[in-house]
């Protein structure tokens, strides 16, 4: 039992100072995604799951040789988005998106989508300013 407790706490990663950090500490990114495997994908939205703890975006990526690969992209938590007025209709099937992120450690076609944007460079869901600064209304064009 003591060993189990030690192990549970070691995993905790809560040996931090307890300050409110910018990085969502709920997820061990290092455990799933590999910082040595950056990816950049352009694909068509096949499915958008507005679920917790992360949303998941499934996209069809057309490769140079014409074949299509299906990738699952891990995105942010949806509830904060709902509070800003987004909902299940906000990212329609068929939308083209560009994803920058890091691939799953086990090499499968999954990635953490750090940056998700439209092909013209405009950030997904963001208005033209969209720095996230206080007073900034990201929903205004």
């Amino acid at each position, binding site marked *: 039992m003591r060993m189990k407790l030690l192990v549970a706490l070691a995993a905790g990663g809560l040996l931090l100072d307890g300050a409110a950090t910018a990085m969502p500490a709920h997820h061990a990114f290092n455990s799933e995604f590999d910082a040595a495997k950056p990816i950049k994908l352009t694909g068509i939205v096949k499915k958008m799951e*507005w679920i917790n703890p992360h949303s998941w975006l499934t996209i069809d990526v057309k490769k140079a040789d014409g074949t299509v690969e299906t990738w699952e992209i891990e995105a942010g938590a*949806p509830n904060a988005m*709902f509070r800003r007025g*987004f*909902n*299940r209709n906000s990212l329609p099937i068929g939308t083209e998106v560009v994803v920058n992120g890091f691939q799953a450690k086990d090499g499968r076609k999954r990635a953490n989508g750090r940056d998700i944007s439209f092909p013209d460079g405009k950030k997904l869901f963001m208005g033209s300013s969209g720095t996230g600064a206080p007073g900034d209304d990201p929903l205004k064009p």
Partner: protein
Amino acid sequence: MRDRLIVARLPPLCYTVARLREVRRTRRRFTVLTIAFAAAVAGAVLSQAAARVVAQAPAAAYRAPRTPDGKPSLNGIWQAMNEANWDIEAHGTGPSPYPELLGALFAQPAAQGVVEGGPLPYTPEALAKKKENFAKRLTRPTSRELNETTGDPEAKCYMPGVPRATYMPMPFQIVQTPQQVLIAYEFANATREIHIGRKPEAPAESWMGWSIGHWEGETLVVDVTDQIDRTWFDRAGNFHSSALHVIERYTPMSADHLMYEATIEDPKVFTRPWKMSMPLYRRVEKNALFIDFKCVEYAQEFMYGHLLSK
């Protein structure tokens, strides 16, 4: 009728009635008139109240204590006492999934079922799916696709959805305020908010659905929509699609029990709406307490055991 009403409902005035007989032959007519006048007034008050109760809740003779905003109080810790979680339809006894390991433990008891009016009206394809659900109810989810399509969500400690959460074999607690009724279920510590007096829209599907409630006399009526299609009605594999629409009715029947009714509509699975009903009983023991049943830790080996270090 009025006299009977008085005698039955006004013990303090029984004396008055007896006295009335005694003084019938007295010369104190003023006394008699006073009594008659009081009785008439009391009768008017009561028959008005009785008439009002009858008009609003045809089935419920019981009038629950009121919350400060004048609604029947559903506050408390409640629990279903039936076998619906095994199988909501009428069913016989049956073995546990692993009788060679468990013996008679977790074998299935028989029950007359909580579904009203005969077998569930599945479409032929849906009935085949229900049978497949049952056959594969304890398939271990060794892939994401398998996890999303197969297996009893109860085994995975997934939130049970509505109505199954109501008749899990564990208590739940109702917290009733004017603008909202919160229901917390011990199983998986599932919670749901029933919004009263306003109709916000669901941003997306959820496991416990989106609930809008209103009062009809003594009954709380709840419209539940936008439930994710991965919950079941029971362990027998009875299921629904994302088109599910549930209308619940909670009616206090006595100080310590409610009648729960749920009408189910799902045109993608059933050929017509159908209804279930059951009493819910108050947990009346001293210091009854909601205690979380956070069961994720008990589901992990079942779900992720294939991913362990060798």
